[in-house]
């Protein structure tokens, strides 16, 4: 009971923040916006941490703290919320990243101003993101999935790159149209499932594991659902909306886009597609795996060609999400665990990298490599050190969070589910390994190019100084968790693994 209330608090606090900011007079709103954001997202984070404490951690496979009430029986819509070992880590990650973003905004104001609207939209975004992870009803999942679109459009289109007004609007519009197409297709898939099973209940559908759905229906439904989610993830070649959206977004927007929005896609693959239409997904898995490794290599090669730090981090997401999708495509517990873990790690690390890229851009007025020159260590040593930390975490250095997810995904590919073609997945594994080498190459090259060498800008820089105290506070949790998840993967995997086993039908393969 308490847990269910806490989940509603986690959803309600940001919503109340949004509504409150929208209703108060502009003058008060502008002044109080950052603190409102910190409080609302802080309450949500605290509520979810309390849920973590209260939850039965030995039973991650079961949905806990469930609320289930009819909302609109005419369309079989239910207000059905709860957490599982799978959704809880994503929900906490979301709340943490939003909290960090709000904290960051207290000091580092977006250049375009209009703080009230900015924070209100970030909080509305949080409602949609958290709701997506907490929903246990497909239609509710879809509703929350859609909630994020409009706020993110505004964040990118208004507070995005101040030097490129048409560019940022175009990037935002590309983002929203692509994702809407994806989610509309996903809805069609959900409705196909409903037409043949008569329920939107994600728990019940997962328990049935596709029973009652013929092979053809499963294939069609899986095509729509996986295809729709693949836009969100994004899976190569549907990624074309991503680089511009990430690069043009304001720092906070990039952090949440990469950190959470992409995870909504991969979470959907694991939580919705794999358990509900297993046979359909199995037929798509080879294609999905193939596209995933193409994405890994493509992302790495694209990164090598980038001339801009923010774009580089953006493209690196394509590669990292490739590992996330490869894990799903193996349809094994190891692969799915790896997918989830890689997703969480990517959320932390890429979130941090976007914060750093934003900080560098704010300080230099550019994130172009040529204009930045080298010598970040000499100029801003702490920022340089953090960038190096983020880069090595991102390339999957053992002992940091990025390592385990990639490893598990590759392990899954080494021994894919029985019904999949093993030699094919071994080939994918080989390509993915090559991609990993390329990833290390471009990240280290970036560190060398930006951090080392002579300081070519020097004292002429309109200095904000090195990492400020507030920046340290808002980035600190990300750094700490990257370390913790790196040395203690069991912390999260003990929650995720039972959930994944349950979704794969207990035994797995």
């Amino acid at each position: 009971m308490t847990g269910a209330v806490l989940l509603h608090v986690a959803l309600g606090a940001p919503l109340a923040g949004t509504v409150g900011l929208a209703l108060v007079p502009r003058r008060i709103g502008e002044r109080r916006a950052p603190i409102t954001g910190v409080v609302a997202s802080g309450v949500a984070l605290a509520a979810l941490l309390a849920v973590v404490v209260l939850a039965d951690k030995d039973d991650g496979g079961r949905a806990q703290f469930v609320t289930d009430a009819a909302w609109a029986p005419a369309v079989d819509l239910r207000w059905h919320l709860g957490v599982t070992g799978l959704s809880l880590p994503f929900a906490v990650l979301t709340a943490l990243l939003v909290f960090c973003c709000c904290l960051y905004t207290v000091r580092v104001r977006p250049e375009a101003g209009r703080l009230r609207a900015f924070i209100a939209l970030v909080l509305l975004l949080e409602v949609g993101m958290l709701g997506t992870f907490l929903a246990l009803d497909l239609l509710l999942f879809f509703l929350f999935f859609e909630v994020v679109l409009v706020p993110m459009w505004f964040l990118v289109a208004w507070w995005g790159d101040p030097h490129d007004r048409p560019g940022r609007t175009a990037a935002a519009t590309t983002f929203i149209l692509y994702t809407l197409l994806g989610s509309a297709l996903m809805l069609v898939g959900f409705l196909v499932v409903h037409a043949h099973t008569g329920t939107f209940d994600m728990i019940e559908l997962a328990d049935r594991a596709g029973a009652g759905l013929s092979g053809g229906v499963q294939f069609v439904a899986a095509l729509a659902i996986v295809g729709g989610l693949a836009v969100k993830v994004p899976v190569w070649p549907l990624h074309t909306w991503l680089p511009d959206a990430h690069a043009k977004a304001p720092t906070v927007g990039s952090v949440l886009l990469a950190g959470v929005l992409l995870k909504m896609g991969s979470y959907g693959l694991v939580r919705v597609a794999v358990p509900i239409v297993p046979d359909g997904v199995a037929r798509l898995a080879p294609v999905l795996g193939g596209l995933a490794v193409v994405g890994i290599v493509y992302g790495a090669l694209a990164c090598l060609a980038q001339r801009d730090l923010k774009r580089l981090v953006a493209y690196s997401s394509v590669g990292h999400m490739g590992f996330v999708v490869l894990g799903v495509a193996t349809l094994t517990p190891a692969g799915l665990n790896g997918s989830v873990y890689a997703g969480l790690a990517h959320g932390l690390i890429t979130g941090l990298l976007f914060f750093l890229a934003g900080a560098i851009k704010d300080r230099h007025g550019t994130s172009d490599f040529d204009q930045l020159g080298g010598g970040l260590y000499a100029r801003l040593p702490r920022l340089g050190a953090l960038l190096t930390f983020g880069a090595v975490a991102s390339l999957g250095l053992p002992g940091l969070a990025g390592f385990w997810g990639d490893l598990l995904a590759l392990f899954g590919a080494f021994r894919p589910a029985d019904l999949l073609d093993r030699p094919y997945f071994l080939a994918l594994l080989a390509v993915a390994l090559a991609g990993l080498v390329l990833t290390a190459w471009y990240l280290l090259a970036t560190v060398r190019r930006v951090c080392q060498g002579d300081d070519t800008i020097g004292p002429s820089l309109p200095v904000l100084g090195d990492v400020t105290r507030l920046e340290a506070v808002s980035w600190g949790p990300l750094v700490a968790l990257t370390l913790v998840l790196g040395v203690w993967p069991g912390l999260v995997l003990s929650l995720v693994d039972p959930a994944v086993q349950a979704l794969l039908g207990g035994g797995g393969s």
Partner: protein
Amino acid sequence: MTGTAQGVDWFTVAPTVLVTATALLVLVADLWLPRRAAGVLTAISVTGTSAALVVVALLWGDARATFCVGGDGALESCSYVVNQLTLVFQAVVLAGTIVVLLLAHAEIGTGEPDRLPGGETGFLVLASATGALVLAAARDLATVVVALEVVSLPAFALVGLRRRSARGAEAALTFFLVSVVSVAVMVYGVGLVYGATGSLHLDRVAGALGDPSNRTAVATAGVVLTLVGLAFKVGAVPFHFWVPDTYAGAPVVVAAYLSVVSKAAGIVGIVVVVGQGFPSYADVWAPAIAVVAVATMTFGNVAALRQRGAVRLLAWSSIAQSGYMLVPLGVASTGVSGGRFGDALSAVVAYVCVYAVVNLAAFGVVAVVSRHRPSGSIEDYRGLAYTEPASAAALGFGLLALAGLPPGVAGLWAKVVVIDSAVSGGAGWLAVAVAVNTVIALAYYLRWAALLFAAPLPGRPAVSYDVPAVSGMAVGLALAAGVVFSVLPQFVLGLADASSGLLG
């Protein structure tokens, strides 16, 4: 209900009678009232319409029928049937009319050239609404045709009501000519159906058409031509071209009326005629409607992408929306007699209700703004949120709901219902077509919605004015209903429960 053949159950027809009486009262009152007493006229018309709405609420429950023939052993056929379907559409018509009357209040002022004449406006709107009310209850083809004409004739005058407006006159003429032609085609179709079946009552027509030996080319042509007339009314492609010119030339409140009340009348006409009259020809009309639906939404959306004028954009958008409304009927072929047609109907009803509300919210704000910025470009709305936050919120909500995206959640449910009807009807291609179209549509809805909140351009301050209280009330009503439909979707989605025998 009625024992004798031609007895009239006055309670059943009370909403129609009330509105008719109010229309006449307004016309007469206008003659006796002093020139500046426009408020009294609006008060009379809104009170009468509201009373009719109350009667509709009282009628909720059992189906009732009047103007019947036959009976006493023979097959009894009624021309005027009031059941849930009728009442839902009558409620939409009445509520829409109330909002339009309230919006029109700020426009009326007798004697001034750029204003609408009070008495005539109220009278014409109410007279046209009478036709829409009858259409929702009509169950024979003659009544359908007459009701459709009653909707249209006052509307021609309404479109050209603004004096000394060349555009208005041209719009009225376009509308008139197109409408006359469409009704002529429809009457021709009705004639063919009558010739093939020997009856005008829809239930008897259905019985006769159901006989396989009666399945002739004449009857088929009759079915198709009858539907053509109704397709004009809802602005379905390829019979849509009058819509943008007419809406843009008409006073904005009249465009609002056409896009909601008149369109709802057309939709209910199609539903009743195909569902009651031609169920056995579903294999003819359902695929045709499906194709028309896809063409309508696609063409409407693509054309709307290029619009820069507010009313023209809403006109094309309303064409596209007609396409979504027709989708459920396009998959009704698999079993009109069974539950599937009921499902299709409840989807149509839900969509029309949501569309009516959110479209009125949008049109309401446009009506207010266009009075101050006659150019009517969507650029006029830049920065509206700074000067008129409530209006901007209403318009923004309306546009996003038309797009079907949160925060316009009501529109999202409507889209879900329509796509669901396509999926459960086995027409996946139709569902995908709707999905793709929502993406196209979002581009223009969002562009406009974003302008509302954009910073005003230097040197061109945002529109600032006092929203007339009555207009504010109208928009507020529509917005409130939209929010209620978002939070409590069951209220509108469950209105027409498929099991309750919608066609009575």
